[in-house]
């Protein structure tokens, strides 16, 4: 029983950052902005969260700092793509490359340092609970409130939304910043709650997996939970298999999350009808108001 609970906890710990990052990116994409910089915002959140906790001794400050760092990177992305109308794909890659470099530079002095882990009850900490509340809130916001409807309108047809008097750019900035704060928090979860230490490149592609999760969930918040936990479970089970002494090279077992991502993308993308029903129609397109 205890062993099962331990496995369950590791699964939850593996799924939570994916869930938080993906739900933020979902909101951003619902407003029509494809931010491929999740990995970069996440790693910045991880280093900022760790650094702030280390310097102040308070994990609350650390959590706040991680969100701020993620949102800051997202605003940079927003300025380039929304104000200067740069290509969203290229800018997202720039955010990722910059985030990886900048976090390595900032984190130089934090390598090998220790902080106190975020307090938890039998392995369940506040961020895990918050991640579920977050999904509920986002789902309610997008489908039950006026502003949520506006966000979806902006994502599905920015010209009509503009002619109805909505501020397309303003709403998109807000959604991008929210997505960045979530990605930052997901990174902060890794460095404050999951493994309380800073390691260069510690996100190890989780930001990209979160991006794939949004597609896998066909832009529906509740399915993101399903997807994140499916991914978390599969990646942890591959480690469990390893401890059971199966004669498979560990490197090949470590491939599992990446392989599963590819398989999941293929399975969901081959059905164009399912995909088209919920894909924001203006995803990735720049908006210029014609006056």
């Amino acid at each position, binding site marked *: 029983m205890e062993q099962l609970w331990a496995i369950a906890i590791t699964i939850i710990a593996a799924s939570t950052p994916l869930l938080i990052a993906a739900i933020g990116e979902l909101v951003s994409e619902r407003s029509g902005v494809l931010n491929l910089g999740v990995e970069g915002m996440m790693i910045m959140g991880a280093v900022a969260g760790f650094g702030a906790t280390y310097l102040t001794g308070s994990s609350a400050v650390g959590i706040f700092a991680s969100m701020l760092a993620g949102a800051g990177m997202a605003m940079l992305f927003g300025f380039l793509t929304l104000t200067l109308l740069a290509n969203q794909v290229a800018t997202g*890659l720039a955010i990722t490359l910059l985030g990886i470099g900048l976090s390595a*530079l900032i984190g130089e002095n934090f390598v090998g340092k220790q902080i106190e882990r975020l307090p938890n009850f039998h392995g369940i900490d506040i961020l895990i609970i918050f991640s579920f509340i977050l999904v509920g809130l986002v789902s309610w916001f997008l489908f039950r409130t006026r502003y949520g409807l506006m966000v979806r309108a902006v994502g599905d047809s920015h010209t009509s939304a503009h002619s109805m008097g909505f501020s397309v750019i303003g709403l998109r900035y807000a959604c991008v910043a929210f997505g960045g704060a979530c990605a930052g928090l997901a990174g902060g979860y890794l460095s404050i709650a999951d493994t309380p230490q800073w390691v260069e490149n510690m996100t190890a592609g989780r930001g990209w997996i979160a991006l794939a999760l949004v597609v896998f969930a066909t832009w529906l918040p509740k399915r993101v939970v399903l997807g994140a936990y499916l991914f978390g479970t599969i990646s942890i089970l591959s480690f469990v298999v390893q401890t059971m002494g199966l004669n498979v090279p560990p490197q090949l077992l470590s491939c599992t999350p*990446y392989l599963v991502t590819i398989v999941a993308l293929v399975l969901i*993308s081959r059905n164009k009808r399912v995909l088209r029903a919920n894909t924001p129609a203006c995803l990735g397109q720049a908006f210029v108001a014609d006056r």
Partner: protein
Amino acid sequence: MPLRLEKRAERSSTMALVSPLIAIALTLIFGAAVFASRGVDPWHGLYVYFVEPLTDEWAREKLIVKATPLVLMGAGLALAYRANVWNIGAAGQLQIGALFTGLIPVYFSNWQDPSVMPAMLLMGVVGGMLWALIPAYLKVRFNANEILTSLMMVYIADLVFDWLVRGPMRDPKGYNFPKTVNFVGWQTLPHWGDIHLGALFALVAALGLGFMAYRMLKGFELLTLGSAPRAGRFAGFSAQRAIYFCFALSGGLAGLAGASDVMGVSHQLQTPYSTPSYGFVAIIVAFLGRLNPIGAIFSGLLLALTFLGGEAAQTSLHIPDKIAKVFQGVLLFFVLACDTLVYYRVKWESRK
């Protein structure tokens, strides 16, 4: 916001040339600020970082060696991005290319005649190409996003490489070091100082792709499909064929970059292997060259310089060499921001 963009009637060809230069200038200003914040005299810092590495012969050779894989990959990616095909997995394609190249010396170590060199290079190209064709196939057949799949393939490539070089391909007489046997004789590339034959491949590839892009029907097809997909379809160009073509081309070049790296520089496979990370820098090379394969020659050299400068900053300024990654990221940022100037005029307007 007081900043407003006004679309130009026509794309400004002056700005197309000037905008990368503005981006470089802005990056230098950023660099000066970073040096100042670290208590280093900005002029001295910039001199050590960007000028000093060019002053001696040995470092100039190193610059070309580092630029070789960057130009090879950057030129291929530039053309792919022009066609709106987003291969961001060049790092993995390079690594699998290197792995395929290594199969010959590991399993046919007695093959020692002039034919082994082209065979190994070909293996590299085939390896990179096959690895790149997986995301291409998934895109064409199942509509799976090629950005995400090609990136996932990078992580998988790294793990497979690590497994094989530690396991089946390890040198049995290598004192358990995670590396293969040394490549010897005809299994290595001819070299002049540090510069190896790969540099010539890079130059030829970039010029050849530049010729193809602007003087051949295939290039016109790719450029059309990238900028006006509907028009391309009416012209009878197949978007699916373009996806296969671009992935095969950029992947093959990445594989060649891997082959020439292990045959020209390290003369063995070892893990961890650091060159694949150049695959991501090659994305910056492509954009700084304004997605023109010939431009990749210049931008490849500049980004190679950022690596050398990083090493110089580490040794003589005591600034961690990770600063190189920051400069590279910031450079891409400014490049993308300045690209706006090609199509738009920036106007400041006061609030009425």
